[in-house]
């Protein structure tokens, strides 16, 4: 027996019929595309309602404010809450750390691209859109994606990105660096770009409450407290002790975790100042 043309015709009728996209997810993405960008640019202040529940162990308080400034840009800021979540006009979602804000041009966002500026720290879950890249900038460097999830910390002199899903491109005037899932990259003014693995996603801890260490030097551990919560920890008499830290820490109280880590090393932690952000370590550490 041999196949004739009718056999072929009959066989190929189901070509790609096994492809079944998620209709409800597609509908949500459609609604996000239809969010009228210009409607958001009405000159008024209002509470922004899109605060969502999260798996994060951090208490969420609805305190995010949606502002329009005199420069024509739309500002989304989180002044009071530990975390505030916003839904952007393209359907992407951003979680802002307290004291952080993003801004974008409401007349241009989601037109040719989806460009916004970040001051502070935010976690982005970006809807897929091949035609309109999503750009997060600190003014000098840019994170470029078409659809993925990642954390960005930014100020005028620094841009740090840690990717949890997919991949991003970090662009400066001098170079472009692809950063994949479970990796991070840092661009600081006047310094070479840093790119390394981030298997534990410890730069997400401000949002997830989870820190994981596996023989991580205490000096590096302390940087996560600075990067996540602005906690600065010095050594008494400037005598640093270097020992590895291992273990998983899951807590909404960063200071309590820091106390535990100090105890594990045989050290004492005390608060200096009254802002609960500055600490000093002392004692003989266990090597």
């Amino acid at each position, binding site marked *: *027996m*041999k*196949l*004739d*043309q009718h*056999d*072929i*015709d*009959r*066989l*190929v*009728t*189901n*070509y*790609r*019929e*096994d*492809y*079944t*996209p998620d*209709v409800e997810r*597609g*509908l949500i*993405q*459609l609604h996000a*595309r*239809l969010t009228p960008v210009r409607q958001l640019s009405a000159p008024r202040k209002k509470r922004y309602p899109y605060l969502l529940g999260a798996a994060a162990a951090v208490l969420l308080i609805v305190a995010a404010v949606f502002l329009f400034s005199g420069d024509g840009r739309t500002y989304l800021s989180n002044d009071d809450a530990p975390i505030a979540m916003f839904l952007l006009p393209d359907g992407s979602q951003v979680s802002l750390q307290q004291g952080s804000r993003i801004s974008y041009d409401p007349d241009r966002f989601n037109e040719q691209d989806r460009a916004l500026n970040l001051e502070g720290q935010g976690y982005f879950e970006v809807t*897929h*859109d*091949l*035609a309109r890249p999503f750009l997060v900038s600190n003014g000098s460097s840019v994170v470029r994606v078409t*659809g993925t999830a990642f954390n960005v910390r930014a100020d005028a002199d620094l841009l740090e990105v840690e990717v949890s899903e997919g991949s991003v491109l970090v662009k400066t005037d001098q170079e472009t660096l692809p950063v994949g899932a479970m990796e991070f990259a840092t661009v600081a003014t006047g310094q070479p770009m840093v790119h390394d693995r981030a298997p534990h996603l410890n730069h997400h801890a401000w949002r997830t409450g989870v820190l994981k260490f596996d023989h991580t030097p205490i000096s590096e551990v302390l940087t996560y407290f600075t990067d996540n919560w602005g906690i600065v920890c010095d050594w008494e008499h400037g005598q640093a002790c270097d020992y590895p830290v291992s273990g998983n820490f899951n807590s909404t109280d960063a200071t309590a975790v820091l106390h535990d880590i100090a105890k594990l090393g045989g050290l004492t932690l005390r608060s200096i100042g009254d802002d609960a952000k500055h600490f000093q370590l002392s004692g003989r550490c266990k090597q």
Partner: protein
Amino acid sequence: MSVSSSATDTELFTSLRGGEASALDELFRRHYVPLCRTAIRLVRDPAAAEDIVQDFFALLWTKRTNLPSDTPAVGPYLRTAVRNRSLNYLRDRKRIPVGDGEVPETAADRSQQPAAVLENEELQQRINAAIDRLPERCRLVFVMSKLEHMSHREIADGLDISVKTVENQMTRAYKFLRQYLSCFLFLISLIHG
């Protein structure tokens, strides 16, 4: 006001023209999967296929007042539009080949030939793979003809080639698929009686 789920596609289209958002949702739910399948047959990329279809529905909404007033065949209307947008997508990215390309040697595919018994699903995957192995222009011509039921003239216009080239590509496609799939003959006879 929301539309009835028993409304016909034509009634939904009329409601959509009148600005009824729930009509757009209902049309989307009914047609999203088949339209994505139309798109992926042409562009091959699942994310791009969904993007094309969502973009088209977004356009339906923003241009709703300009939609044709009496559309009895809504399904074909949507399918034709998505097909054209998929071809535009390929054209914009210069992914419509200008050359014939080489038809792969079927003799080199021994490792992919089936065991004595194949599940239906696996057979479907083999057929998908067989079509995907065609040179891209040949594959597009074949898909547009046999899956999208376009005339040779429509295909020629869509890909900016001659009708004669379409015929040649169809001959190449049948020849390759006949050889590639012939080894499934026994199983085909079992499945289809």
